[in-house]
């Protein structure tokens, strides 16, 4: 078999199996493989690979856009939003807020902090959020002292 023709046919095989070759090229390849076992084998192999190519099991466009939106919200948050949201989140966590939080921190700010942290929560070995108070570890006496302090704080705010 003519080596030059084999070379040209093999170059064109991917386009033929993808349906992107011209009619003339398809005809040339079809005629060639009738007489060339090696090129016929290569054509079959390329057809098998093209036919079994993987497709993504789920459309990820929604997930990608959601992550982009989340990033955009976090990056456009003002600096005071970060600290105010952090203070509010801490206050909410230990229950010492004296009134509605929306006056102090907009919901979007709290949401942004939660979203910013959800991917990399700093957890301790037992799965407790680092820095969060662990009331179970307190003795009855310590708990009573803490409650007294909280009552005084809330009394002072009222």
């Amino acid at each position, binding site marked *: 078999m003519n080596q030059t023709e084999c070379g040209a046919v*093999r170059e064109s095989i*991917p*386009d033929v*199996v*993808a349906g*992107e070759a011209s009619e003339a090229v398809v005809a040339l390849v079809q005629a060639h493989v009738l007489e060339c076992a090696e090129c016929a*084998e*290569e054509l*079959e*192999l*390329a057809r*098998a*690979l*093209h*036919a*079994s*190519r*993987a*497709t*993504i*099991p*789920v*459309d*990820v*466009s*929604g*997930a*990608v*856009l959601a*992550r*982009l939106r989340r*990033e955009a919200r976090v990056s456009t948050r003002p600096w005071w939003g970060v600290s105010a949201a952090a203070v509010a989140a801490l206050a909410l966590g230990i229950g010492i807020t004296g009134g509605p939080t929306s006056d102090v921190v907009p919901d979007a700010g709290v949401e942004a902090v939660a979203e910013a942290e959800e991917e990399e929560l700093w957890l301790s070995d037992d799965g407790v959020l680092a820095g969060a108070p662990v009331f179970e570890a307190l003795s009855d006496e310590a708990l009573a002292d803490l409650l007294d302090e909280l009552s005084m704080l809330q009394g002072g705010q009222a």
Partner: protein
Amino acid sequence: MTRFERAGPEPSDSELVERGRSGDEVALGALVRRHQDMAFRIALSITRNEDVALDVVQDAFLKAFRALDGFRGDAAFRTWLGTIVGNEARGALRKAKRRRESALDEVGPVASDDKDVAQAIEIMDESSRARRMMQELPEKQRLSVSLRIEEGLSFREIGELIGSSEGAARVNYFHGIRRLRELMR
């Protein structure tokens, strides 16, 4: 649009990129849907794991969109994206390797039953068998074959994507195909 009007031609990648730069989510979503299959195949070709490949695809699109302002359009968007996917996939492989190495200390090597594998291959149809054999190729050959046959990329584009010359991409492709034919016999 009235019901008799025909939809216009699909916008090109360049048009979608331009719209995406100004934050047009419809354009960005269209870019993802247009190229996610290719991105997935590249990621799968490198990581050989569907779940990891899916994560890689998402991360790669995010990286691409964040860097859209820096994309000058010298290469086609799909080639540029493919390069990002390739880098992400290799990064994921490195991470997985590090995790595996530390896990191996605890679990030890997993024994493979060659007999079972051989039997499984025997009952696969020709396409599945070819795909299975692809995994035997070195990464650059595997990617060159995949990108040429499955994506229809030119050798120049493949070279750009795998970080080699057009000639090297061609050599990798033909070596890969020859090796596959040998494995299939």
